[in-house]
């Protein structure tokens, strides 16, 4: 009954009026961030980290606020998928397949309620799964030495690159670019500067928040200028929203199956929510007796991917908290948050800072209930927000990005660096080079090198040591498979094309 007493402690932390208020605010902001096309969960959390840090929030408050934003964005992504056929964020892409046809048939309200409930089921069950599994995994993680951690980081890069991109060379290039950037600054062991070229600003290394905000948020500005903000959502109407109880009952199986699939996909390092919703949809469509209904406004086709994407969001927190290895872009940003707050994720987090872990879990449970209330009865509020024109939204987001970095570092150099990362992000996305591995490389680069060097100290420079334990051999094999397997699987599991004809029809 360890879990119950821990959970009680967590609720003791999370149920104070202050944290509750932060959870509500976070859920609200998150849903908006998720719903607005062009502002995904990674963006939203990345923009808010420097601001919450400059506000001087303590660790638990900041964590509650930003994980609420994270979960909220996962809920919100479906709104524009259904109403506009534009996924609000990447994981919500599968929801467009049946959600938008439902909206065209005049059942937008039904689709929003079903997907809202599916999000709740997925996220709530995944949070319970997190509660049960994370302590177990953290016990396994105690077996990990530097050689195992090195292999684990490699595994994260390989699977993230393997699954998340269309070209292995490009994702590997992105990862090593990130690692290369992480090397800038003073070497921790010898205290010697590396790649600073005499520039004093670079001695401390490049702040990963600068890189994240630049790559995710500032690059978006260039995209919007290029497209002249065509992806905005003006003139959406939504009729009365009722709760379709019969449909909810009919889709409950789809929700549970989607949750299971999404949760497992989320735990795998590198897979994340997009894969979770994709697999959930494909599985649901293939077990259904009436396959032809999918893609034409089938409620189960809305319920399964939404449950899957939210369950994956919960599952992805498990490797992030227990091993310090994020499974997706957004959890990478949450890892950045933990590092900013001086919390080192890993097995020791569960024994040394239990109030952080259990407070987080309790606030996730609370956030889910808040989000269910916000996203079912109050969904109309967010539909209104969707009609903010992009020529107001984008300059606003950009300025928030600048305010965040400025108030965090107070330096013009860092802001210019952020703009440079924005240009890099734009070029990379044009070339179809994923940006998440870059972030992951910057975040994990120093830890990865550190573990390699410590392993070599233990073995006195013998490189065979890296493959000397069963765990590390397993991780190396998984890493190689995770990198190579998608090359062969890609032929069978083709990603659906992003919908393009959204506005015209």
């Amino acid at each position: 009954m360890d879990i119950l007493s821990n959970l009680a402690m967590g609720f003791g932390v999370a149920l104070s009026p202050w944290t509750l208020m932060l959870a509500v605010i976070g859920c609200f902001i998150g849903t908006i961030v998720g719903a607005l096309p062009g502002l995904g969960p990674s963006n939203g959390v990345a923009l808010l980290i420097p601001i919450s840090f400059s506000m001087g929030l303590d660790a638990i408050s900041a964590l509650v606020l930003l994980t609420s934003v994270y979960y909220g964005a996962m809920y919100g992504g479906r709104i524009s998928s259904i109403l506009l056929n534009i996924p609000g964020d990447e994981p919500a892409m599968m929801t467009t397949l049946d959600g938008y046809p439902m909206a065209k048939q005049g059942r937008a309200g039904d689709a929003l309620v079903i997907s809202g409930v599916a999000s709740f089921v997925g996220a709530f069950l995944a949070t319970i799964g997190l509660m049960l599994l994370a302590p177990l995994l953290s016990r396994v993680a105690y077996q990990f030495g530097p050689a195992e951690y090195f292999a684990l980081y490699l595994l994260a890069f390989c699977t993230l690159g393997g699954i998340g991109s269309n070209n292995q060379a490009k994702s590997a290039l992105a990862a090593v670019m990130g690692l290369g950037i992480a090397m800038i600054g003073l070497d921790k062991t010898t205290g010697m500067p590396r790649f600073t070229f005499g520039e004093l600003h670079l001695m401390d290394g490049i702040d990963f928040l600068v890189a994240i905000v630049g790559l995710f948020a500032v690059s978006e500005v260039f995209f919007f200028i290029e497209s002249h903000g065509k992806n905005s959502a003006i003139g959406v109407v939504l009729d009365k929203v009722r709760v379709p109880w019969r449909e909810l009952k009919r889709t409950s199986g789809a929700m549970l199956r989607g949750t299971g699939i999404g949760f497992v996909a989320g735990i795998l390092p590198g897979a994340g929510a997009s894969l979770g919703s994709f697999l959930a949809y494909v599985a649901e469509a293939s077990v259904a007796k009436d396959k032809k209904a999918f893609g034409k406004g089938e409620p189960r086709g809305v319920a399964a991917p939404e449950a899957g994407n939210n369950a994956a969001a919960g599952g992805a927190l498990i490797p992030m908290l227990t091993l310090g290895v994020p499974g997706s872009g957004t959890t990478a940003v949450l890892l950045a948050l933990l590092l900013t707050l001086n919390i080192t994720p890993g097995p020791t987090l569960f024994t040394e800072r239990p109030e952080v872990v259990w407070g987080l879990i309790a606030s996730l449970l609370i956030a889910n209930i808040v989000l269910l209330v916000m996203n079912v009865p109050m969904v109309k509020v967010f539909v209104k927000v969707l009609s903010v024109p992009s020529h107001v939204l984008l300059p606003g987001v950009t300025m928030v990005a600048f305010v965040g970095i400025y108030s965090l570092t107070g330096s013009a150099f860092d802001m210019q660096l952020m703009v440079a990362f924005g240009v890099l992000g734009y070029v990379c996305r044009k070339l179809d080079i994923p940006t998440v591995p870059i972030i992951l490389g910057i975040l994990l680069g120093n830890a990865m090198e550190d573990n390699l060097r410590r392993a070599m100290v233990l073995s006195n420079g013998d490189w065979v040591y890296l493959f000397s334990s069963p765990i590390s051999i397993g991780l190396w094999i998984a890493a190689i498979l995770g990198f190579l397997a998608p090359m062969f699987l890609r032929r069978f599991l083709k990603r659906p094309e992003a919908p393009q004809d959204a506005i015209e029809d």
Partner: protein
Amino acid sequence: MIKADRIFGLVMILVALGYLFSATQIQTSFLSDPVGPRVFPYLIGVTVILCSVVLVLRPDANADWPGLSTLLQLAIALAVLIGYSTAVRPLGFIIPTAIAAGVLSYQINPKPVTAAATGVGLSVGLFVLFKMILGLGLQGFPRGWF
């Protein structure tokens, strides 16, 4: 036709060579660990070159790159953002923000009046939000104005 991937691959090979050269210049102390501060950067540089060679040899199809006029727009936006980074510290928050937000807004939707209103509105609104409500330490106007 020239593939963008090839150009990027070549650029990255040059960058990686520079990176490797710079890594050879890292000073090691004689008390260092068996690996030292150079080996990991070497591994990174070599991997970048391997990946870039793959890009040069087997490039993907080109994306739609913007035309000359859009490129000019992007360059203007870039100049605005860099100018903003430089100006916001000496000039305070409100004036540079209004100008930068206004220009960006005009670039997305070319209506001068809307853009000006957006710029001023965002600048004042965000200042009130961040300074007065959230309590961040922002300087509103150039030092010495008030």
